[in-house]
């Protein structure tokens, strides 16, 4: 069943056009990832989906009904947004989590039961009486998740939910969100491609307020800012995933997933040499340098090895090795450097 239907949706703030001509459909139980650079329009889109702002162009439908100033309140009762910076009303963790339930007139005994359940879900049982503003950033974001999940929303909208968090807390939060997948519509906006890949089964990419790509995980792989990101079919060979990314290139990774996947290798994880070198690295490809550019005091080489790779080396390496456009080189990287998106 379609929950959201966007037809040429746009949003202007005065003269500035933050979002333009977005058309897409999001179904019940579907997980949508929204990727894009800062200022691409991710937050604006989420705010429209949450009913916090109203589109100025096109038509946004929720359950087949157009969302406008008059109907946005109904949407907000079923769609809850998590903000990048968790916000709290004055009071304890329990008071914050109970806030939405009390607005809905839920009986107090039920409020108490549901608050406890929500806190268990985000692994914060026992935090009920703590001051919500005086717990750590990771704990605050988990309270924000509990406060939204306790309302059992049909749509759960997350704006960079793991930004500025340490890896441990980010991982807990991703687990909590992943556990909700399939039970409700989830829209997650992030810069973190790996995280979006893990949480979403459909991805859209925004650029300057425009929707530039939408589809499966391959969108991540083909996205302009997904350097060294590829999609392909993976199959496991003796415990190592082998992903055929086309162009005669098969990339080995340590993840244990078969089927269609999107993967990425960081440019700084790739070693360049002029000859084949016997190492433990599972991936080695021969290619030709097709581009050399300096980015923030380091050198980025573009190497065509059947698929185009971006490799990062120092200026000194470039000078000492005498690499130039047209040079024949070997690229090698470990299977454990391959990130599953």
């Amino acid at each position, binding site marked *: 069943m379609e929950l959201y239907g966007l037809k040429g949706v746009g949003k202007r703030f005065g003269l500035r056009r933050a979002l333009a001509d977005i058309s897409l459909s999001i179904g019940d139980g579907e997980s949508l990832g929204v990727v894009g650079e800062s200022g691409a329009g991710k937050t604006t889109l989420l705010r429209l989906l949450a009913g916090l702002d109203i589109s100025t162009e096109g038509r946004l439908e929720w359950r087949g009904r157009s969302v406008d100033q008059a109907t946005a309140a109904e949407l907000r009762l079923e769609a809850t947004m998590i903000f990048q910076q968790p916000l709290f*009303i004055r009071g304890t963790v329990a008071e914050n989590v109970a806030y939405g339930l009390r607005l809905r007139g839920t009986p107090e005994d039920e409020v108490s039961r549901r608050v406890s359940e929500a806190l268990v879900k985000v692994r914060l049982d026992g935090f009920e009486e703590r001051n919500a503003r005086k717990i750590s950033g990771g704990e605050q974001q988990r309270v924000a998740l509990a406060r939204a999940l306790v309302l059992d929303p049909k749509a759960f909208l997350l704006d960079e939910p793991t930004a500025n968090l340490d890896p441990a807390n980010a991982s807990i939060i991703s687990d909590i969100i992943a556990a909700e997948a399939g039970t409700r519509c989830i829209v997650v906006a992030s810069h973190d491609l790996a995280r979006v890949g893990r949480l979403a089964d459909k991805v859209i990419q925004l650029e300057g307020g425009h929707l530039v790509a939408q589809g499966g995980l391959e969108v991540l792989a083909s996205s302009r800012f997904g350097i060294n990101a590829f999609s392909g079919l993976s199959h496991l060979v003796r415990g190592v995933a082998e992903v055929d990314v086309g162009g005669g290139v098969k990339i080995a990774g340590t993840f244990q997933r078969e089927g269609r996947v999107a993967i990425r290798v960081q440019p700084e994880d790739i070693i360049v040499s002029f000859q084949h070198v016997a190492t433990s690295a599972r991936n080695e490809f021969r290619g030709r340098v097709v581009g050399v550019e300096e980015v923030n005091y380091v050198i980025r080489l573009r190497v065509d090895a059947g698929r185009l790779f971006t490799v990062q080396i120092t200026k000194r390496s470039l000078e000492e090795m005498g690499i130039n456009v047209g040079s024949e080189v070997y690229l090698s990287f470990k299977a454990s450097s391959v990130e599953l998106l």
Partner: protein
Amino acid sequence: MSWQPFVDGVRQGIQLIISRDPEVIQITLRSLETAGAATAMAALVGLPIGIVLGLGSFRGRGFLKTLFGALVGIPTVSLGLILLVLFSRSGPIGYLDLLYTVPGIAVGEAVLVIPLIVSFVASAVEAKDIGVRDLTRTLGASEFEASMAIVREAWSGVSLAIVSSFNRAFAELGIAMMIGANIAGLTRLLTTAIALQSNMGDFGLAFALSFILFAVVISLNFVISWLGRER
């Protein structure tokens, strides 16, 4: 230069307070009553205006905010003069018989502190607006519920506005002098009495009254700060 007048004044002041001098008690209670009534009247008018200015987005909002901000600094003597003309028997509201009365002083002080309440409340509410409004609305609050939540969250700013207004009214001299005329037993307040006793060279009573003025202002601030603290 001798410190003796200060020392004598402090000693006499302490004695007057310990002995619960009837005149001192009467003047103190009258001052509290006047400042309290002035703050209540100002809050009644200023809080809604401040909240609307803080929450709203309408034409002329910026102008009104600037205007109230400017009025915070109005010289009390000038305001006292204007009110004196308005309250005088031949003035436009002379029929209210407010001149040389405690209610008259309270009204004058209320007029003085309304801009202060409006400015403080508008700023406090505005500062909380975007975040709290988004948060409460996404949790299902109506526009009215969201606005009420913002005002609740801005409580420390609102309480600061009210306390500051009370302090200003309590320590006000110009209007009290011009509207009340410092009539003994009728309109004499702490500030007007301090001014009078100082002019007469009676530093003891002036100091005693000053201590009470300080004590009330400081105690009130501590109480409000304790009430508004984040638990």
